[in-house]
């Protein structure tokens, strides 16, 4: 059984991974797979599909790990790969074709961020997982990963307006869900 004690230093661990050291790769997997699986589930909403993305994501990580230049957090770099892998999977299924742009911004105004702060993260994750895929993707990228609408639009190959409308709808959807659960 490989243990993390074999590679106490992250830099040494990454260097070993670059050299395709299977033991190091396994340590890296054990270190980050729980967090990355949670990220994947947030995006695709299903554990089964998230496991597929986790698999593909780690394959990409081990292939591209040599391109990590050490600037910035490794976890951030890793997270970007998994988010991109999840987005690619969603794009394959054409689920990111958002055709409806919202011209009416009133929906955005009605969504209150106070409501979201009232629930704990586990409940919120459960809610996010049950969101329609379009809402969920944009909400994840904007509210959790910190992407702006321009970045979201570029990543999902949609317009910025579409990104905004999906976010507004996601907020309204969440609000309605919370209200209905309170009742």
């Amino acid at each position, binding site marked *: 059984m490989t243990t993390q004690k074999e590679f106490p230093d992250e830099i040494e661990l990454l260097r070993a991974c670059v050299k*395709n050291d*299977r033991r190091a*790769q*396994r340590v890296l*997997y*054990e270190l980050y*797979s*729980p*967090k990355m*699986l*949670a990220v994947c*589930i947030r995006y695709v909403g*299903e*554990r*089964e*599909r*998230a*496991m*597929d993305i*986790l*698999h*593909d994501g*780690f*394959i990409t990580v*081990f*292939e591209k790990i040599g391109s990590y230049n050490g600037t910035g957090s490794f976890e951030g770099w890793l997270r970007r790969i998994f988010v991109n892998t999840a987005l690619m*999977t969603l794009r*394959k*299924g*054409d*689920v990111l074709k958002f055709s409806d742009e919202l011209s009416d911004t009133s929906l955005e105004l009605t969504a209150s961020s106070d409501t979201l702060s009232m629930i704990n*993260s*586990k409940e*919120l*994750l459960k809610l996010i997982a049950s969101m329609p895929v379009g809402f969920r993707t944009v909400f994840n990228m904007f509210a*959790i990963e910190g992407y702006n609408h321009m970045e979201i639009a570029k990543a999902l190959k949609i317009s910025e307006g579409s990104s905004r409308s999906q976010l507004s709808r996601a907020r309204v959807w969440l609000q309605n869900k919370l209200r209905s659960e309170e009742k």
Partner: protein
Amino acid sequence: MEAHTEVPDAGSWSLIELSLLRKKKAKVLYFRRALYTTAAVAASLVLLLVLNKSSYDFNDSAKVVVQKSAIANLEPEQDIIEKKSVQSIDNSKTLISEQISEQIKSEKQTINPDKLIIKEQSTDKEQTTIKEQSTDKEQTTIKEQSTDKKQATIEKQAEQNSESSKSEKNVESAKKDSRSSYPPVQDYKSISRKKHSPIVAIATNLSPSTGNNSVSLMSMSQSQGGLAPNNVVSTIQKASVPQEVISNTKFLMPVSMGIQLQMPISKMFAVGVGVNYTLLFSQYDALSHQETRETEQTLHYIGVPLNLYVNIMQKDNIRLYATGGIALEKGLYAFYRVSENGVGRTSGETIDGLQWSLTGGFGVEFAINNSKGLYFDPTVAYYFDNSQPLSIRTSQPLQFKFELGFRFHL
């Protein structure tokens, strides 16, 4: 929320490790395929060059052989012949013959009649004259002269040292032998073919494209209104696909064989129509915790290509041309060999619909002789999306193709 974690399923690392190993193997395999393809193309080119050289040098080689044999036979009397040649320019024929006869007598050696000196001067036109002169002592000269630009002179000197009573007969036979050993004058021309004659071509076609996709079958089958399976394999797999399946798809090199009839419609253009048979190979591996499924798919297609050929250049026995056209193919049969946890079974289905494609490229033909040619057509083909079973063509619609074959000029 960022600190939230989920424990992955047991055995997920094993699958990642397996995929990493497969990727490594695939890289080696891809490298090998690239190497084999390069070697095959290089070997084909070498073959073409060898064939081209041998056909091009056919007449030259005849000359060389004649020259070599003459030189070889003359070796013992090289000095004598050189003297004789110089003297033949400076002195009269009679004097030469006398000197030669004296020298020959003094040497008392036999010289074969095939001792030749061939001089050739090439010009544009092809008018030649052969003059043959024989001396008393068996000296023969063949001269080819052209009036305008081309002059070809073949001088032949054959000497035979024999007794005077036998000499005349030997000279006659030597003349006959030497005449028959000369290649005909028209052999010096490059290979010429009947214009506007139909051509039959037999060819094999290789497309060096291969592909490798890692996809989740579940993600395809579960996407609502998304990817409808356009593949009978997917349909089979979808019917009983287990949860948490990771699949790997490999597309191998397509192979075609065919025959084509080419009809020249002018000096520049020709139209070709034919029939070809294509095999497309794919492999699908699906792995899950419950089972391992390996599927081999072979698609059989029969097609009718219609091409236009435009001659770009024709020199000696090499012809360069551009080609472009359209092809219509009908899928005949899809054959599957499925192995589930080591238990094999086979199945098959007919393929619906037609596959349309466009091709374009260049080609080169090397004339082996008047009726045969070896050709090599590197082309690019684009396969339209006609809802055909998953293959390298659906995965990579733009394909490079290398066609190698023989053409028979009727």
